């Protein structure tokens, strides 16, 4: 147990100064928030997800302030969030109405609207680009083409399987008051709305590792899931303020969505059908949306009557350890003064040893 200590003001002040000095050791140019937002956009998008607050400017600021320590940046954003009054809940996002930036399916080759690669590292050679070492100016792309596109519609790929009843359907219970981890205590067994919110703000590395474990054999089925569809793009956000009495658009955000298709053997009541896992994140965060979709499927195991034997299927294991603000808080609190505690342990071990050593002499 940690026992409060007093004093050390001067040392703490000096420590904070050293931390700030670390950021400007040799007096390089200060990074602008816009530079971080554009040139480190993946870091910015990670922080808005795990910080659970969509604000790319503040995310970039947090990254600057934390000197690139993303878990620290996430902590800063979470702390800021607690100062905000909540004005509204949005209408649930309609991901079928998306301005597409990327859209692929690994299950179907020919899909209406086509496979759109968009900006991706997938087909890059993963060779260091040494020209970036000497990059001075960045020229923006001026090539504007705003003609009416031939196609704007990208129907949901998994509807193919839905039409044949080969795919599990979403059940609509019309629950309009979903769990909110920022207001409600965790409860078990957890409902899917609870775990989907926690996964959305969960640590990307933890979720990636969990999903990897499932595919390698520590999962509900030893089989290989299929990407039904991955989408990245822009969606409108709507609210219905009481004072207006109708629904209005309040702006747009970027999202990444993954529909994962998994196996299921069926039972007495259900003939064999594919099951589904779903992942959704803020911003461009494809890897995490894929990881979430695999963890989502594994957490649904109990509902399918599957045996729970792996960590990824265990709700308490996954949901209590996915949050990196909590995880880092608990792990790193160990470095705070535990002097009294440790004295107790020291006394105990001395006493034990003495008893045993004296016993031997007799």
């Amino acid at each position, binding site marked *: 147990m940690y026992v409060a200590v007093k004093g050390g003001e001067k040392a703490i002040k000096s420590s904070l100064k050293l931390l700030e000095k670390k950021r400007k050791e040799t007096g390089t140019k200060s990074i602008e928030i816009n530079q971080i937002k554009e040139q480190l956009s993946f870091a910015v998008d990670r922080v808005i997800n795990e910080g659970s607050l969509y604000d790319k400017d503040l995310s970039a600021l947090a990254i600057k302030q934390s000197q690139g320590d993303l878990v620290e940046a996430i902590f800063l954003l979470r702390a800021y969030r607690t100062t905000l009054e909540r004005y509204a809940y949005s209408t649930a996002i309609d991901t079928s109405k998306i301005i597409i930036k990327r859209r692929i399916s690994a299950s179907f080759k020919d899909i209406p609207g086509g*496979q759109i690669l968009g900006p991706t590292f997938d087909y890059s050679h993963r060779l260091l680009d040494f020209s970036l070492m000497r990059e001075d100016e960045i020229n923006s792309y001026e090539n504007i083409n*705003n003609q009416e596109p031939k196609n704007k519609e990208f129907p949901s790929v998994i509807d193919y399987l839905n039409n044949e009843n080969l795919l599990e359907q979403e*059940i*609509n219970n019309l629950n309009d008051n979903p769990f909110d981890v920022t207001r409600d205590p965790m409860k078990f067994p957890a409902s899917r709305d609870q775990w989907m919110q926690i996964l959305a703000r969960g640590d990307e590395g933890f979720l990636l590792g969990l999903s990897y474990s499932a595919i390698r054999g520590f999962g509900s089925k030893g089989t290989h899931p299929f990407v039904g569809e991955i989408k990245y793009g822009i969606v409108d956000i709507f609210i219905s303020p009481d004072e207006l009495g109708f629904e209005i658009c*309040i702006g747009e955000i970027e999202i990444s969505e993954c529909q994962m298709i998994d196996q299921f053997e069926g039972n007495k009541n259900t003939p064999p059908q594919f099951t589904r896992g779903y992942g959704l994140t803020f911003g461009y965060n494809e890897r995490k949306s894929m990881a979430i979709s695999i963890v989502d499927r594994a957490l649904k195991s109990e509902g399918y009557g599957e045996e729970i034997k792996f960590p990824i299927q265990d709700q308490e294991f996954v949901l209590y350890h996915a949050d990196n603000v909590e995880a880092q808080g608990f792990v790193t609190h160990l470095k705070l003064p535990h002097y009294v505690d440790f004295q107790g342990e020291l006394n105990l071990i001395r006493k034990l040893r003495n008893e045993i050593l004296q016993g031997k002499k007799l």
Partner: protein
Amino acid sequence: MSEIQRKDWISILSKTETIDLKNCIENINYTKDYKIIYGPNVGSIMIRARLGGNGDPYNLGEATLTKCVIKLEEGTTGYSYHLGRDKIRAEYAAVLDALMQDNNYYSKLQSMILDLKDKINKKENHIINESNSSKVDFFTLVRGDG
């Protein structure tokens, strides 16, 4: 010129940059005083999504939201709710929402608001065209039996 519903102009204003909002107000020479009823203040909104994409709603995460309410001298009230923390933008949008409800100003603003809508459409078209430029046709190769 097509009529614009309030719901639609609020949507257009929510996707328009500060400078364009300011220009609209300046172009109609609106210089009267208006009273600020609320804000502009920054709060948050909980964004919801659907389980599996089309199931029950769940809470995805929050976003910053700026709210502003103003009242024109003429007595009309204007509202704005905008994602982000741009207070000036939210104030202009609230003023424009109020002006658009006044028939006199509506007729002066209508074409400008339609231009803003056109600008938003063009921007969206540009994004989709860019994306479509990376459309790919994968073809599968049949593995030979040797």
